[in-house]
């Protein structure tokens, strides 16, 4: 068979074996050197990245697994977010979870393997299995502080909501299969057009399928109104896992959404197709996400809850690019997620370090940080300003592209909502900066991150500034990856 190109599966296979290796290593080394597990997880992710650069491009299993540009672009985001989550975990690994270190790192890698499979899936069942492999390790990771009630609550909530949303997604996918007779996304697109052309209409089953799939993936994305689990889970879970959830798992949801809707159901993205138009449904949800996320974030006193609501709002901005359903739209979504990786992972890394040092997540306890740790206060300001979308940082270019795509596709009202809520968001981001720089209280806390955490912060800051000033290379790559959908 011509398409049996096994080599494109090498990065996934390697990362899986490496995760098992880390489990084994945990048994072997006992507690002699606490850092070796973390470093080997980081090394494994780096090697996976290199393998991905060598072995890519092609299809496997008769097109069920595709290593195209979109998949590779998002795989880089997944590997990057796992790398940063591991890098910021060193302190908790030597303290709170020191008896279960191997499981912790191993499960992060398993989840990353799931995301990589998901992004390569061009077929509904592979996509679903990839999504399960992504989320099941995350349920365990969210509840990893076994003695902490909040963390156990987070794990349980995430498990129940996750299982529920998986079931809804599966109902939606089975309806799509029933309507089209295939699980392959491209064949599904063709069959749907054939049915539409021959009968002039498609029954209400398709609307039901679309709503169920939007709800199922919406839960994973924490899109309003499927967001209610996010703040509690984000607050209770270990902070590096919260960061991984908010970047890696969200990017996985975004790529699944792009595969199903922007590829498979692209014909139904325009007003002409009323009431089968999914664009308007998603646009309304995105507007709701931006309004609710940003306004609720204003009142938060806990930094993890604030970042949770901020990430609910951020996914609203991403969805503006998604409903545009054009080449620029998908490219802008990719670029947005890429910058979001640096900004959000960076902000959560600071929150992790701060929590390790003080045991507090309150925004008020950040007061005066600029006097004791000026570098980290500056880092945090850069991350927050990038999330708010201030030039010349990466977040500005990302928002600009997403809004441009939205206007190009005729969603002017949505872009106006996005612009207005973006102004609101500046208030709560700037509020932290104000607390760090202009608080009257005497500063007492000085933070000393470990070397890997420092590395993560440095990568994030460089990424935000570099790709903010020179968006060219990433944007070209994102545009290249968007070409795989035939618009």
């Amino acid at each position, binding site marked *: 068979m011509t398409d049996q190109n096994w080599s494109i599966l090498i990065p996934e296979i390697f990362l899986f074996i490496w995760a098992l290796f880390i*489990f*084994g290593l945990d*048994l072997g080394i006992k507690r002699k050197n606490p850092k070796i597990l973390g470093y080997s997880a980081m090394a494994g992710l780096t090697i996976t990245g290199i393998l991905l650069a060598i072995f890519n491009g092609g299809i496997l299993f008769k097109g069920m697994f595709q290593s195209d540009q979109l998949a590779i672009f998002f795989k880089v985001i997944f590997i990057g977010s796992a790398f940063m989550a591991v890098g910021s975990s060193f302190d908790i690994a030597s303290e709170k979870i020191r008896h279960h270190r191997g499981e912790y790192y191993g499960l992060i890698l398993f989840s990353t393997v799931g995301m990589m499979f998901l992004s390569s899936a061009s077929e509904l069942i592979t996509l679903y299995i990839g999504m399960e492999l992504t989320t099941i390790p995350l349920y365990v990771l969210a509840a990893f502080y076994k003695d902490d009630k909040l963390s156990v609550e987070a794990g349980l909530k995430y498990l129940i909501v996750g299982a529920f949303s998986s079931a809804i997604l599966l109902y939606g996918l089975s309806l799509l299969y029933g309507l089209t007779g295939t699980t392959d996304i491209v064949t599904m697109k063709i069959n749907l057009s054939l049915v539409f052309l021959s009968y002039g209409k498609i029954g209400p089953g398709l609307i039901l399928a679309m709503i169920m799939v939007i709800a199922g993936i919406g839960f994973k994305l924490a899109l309003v109104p499927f967001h209610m689990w996010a703040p509690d889970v984000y607050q209770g879970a270990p902070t590096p896992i919260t960061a991984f959830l908010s970047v890696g798992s969200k990017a996985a949801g975004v790529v699944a959404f792009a595969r199903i809707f922007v590829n498979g159901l692209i014909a139904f993205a325009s007003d002409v197709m009323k009431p089968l138009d999914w664009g308007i449904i998603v646009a309304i949800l995105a507007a709701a996400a931006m309004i609710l996320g940003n306004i609720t974030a204003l009142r938060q006193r806990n930094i993890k809850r604030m970042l949770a609501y901020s990430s609910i709002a951020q996914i609203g901005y991403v969805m503006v690019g998604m409903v545009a359903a054009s080449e620029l739209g998908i490219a802008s979504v990719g670029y947005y997620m890429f910058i979001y990786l640096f900004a959000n992972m960076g902000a959560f890394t600071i929150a992790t370090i701060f929590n390790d040092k003080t045991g507090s997540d309150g925004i008020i306890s950040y007061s005066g940080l600029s006097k004791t740790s000026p570098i980290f206060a500056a880092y945090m300001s850069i991350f927050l300003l990038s999330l708010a979308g201030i030039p010349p940082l990466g977040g500005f270019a990302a928002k600009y592209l997403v809004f441009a795509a939205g206007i190009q596709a005729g969603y002017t009202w949505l872009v106006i909502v996005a612009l207005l809520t973006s102004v609101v968001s500046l208030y709560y981001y700037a509020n932290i900066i104000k607390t760090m720089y202009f608080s009257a209280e005497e500063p007492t806390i000085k933070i000393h991150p470990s070397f890997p955490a420092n590395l993560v912060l440095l990568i994030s800051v460089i990424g935000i500034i570099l790709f903010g000033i020179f968006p060219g290379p990433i944007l070209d790559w994102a545009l290249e990856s968007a070409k795989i959908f035939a618009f």
Partner: protein
Amino acid sequence: MNEYAAVLIFLFVGIGVVLFTFFLARLVRPSNPYKAKNQNYECAEPPIGSGWIQFNNRFYIFALIFVVFDVEAIFLFPWAVAFGQLGLYALIEMIIFIVILLFGLFYAWKKGVLKWV
């Protein structure tokens, strides 16, 4: 649509039959409850205390490990049936699958999960 209408009718008839039987039984049977009759019989002793007691959670871990291999057996059946046509390729795949599961058991064993302390 007609086939689906049949399903719907079938559903209603199905629910109706059950309700009707209960109703019919109520009409026919004599109603004469007394204390000895309402006791549970042939099911051993009357229970002492509530059923909501704390089980030893070591049972849970054992059950979990058992389930893994239980599910593995389900996967082995179709594999064994189709093995004739699949050949060496399937054998290697199944060996990899089982080795991964065995590694899990080994990990649990080494972590002291199987020890009944």
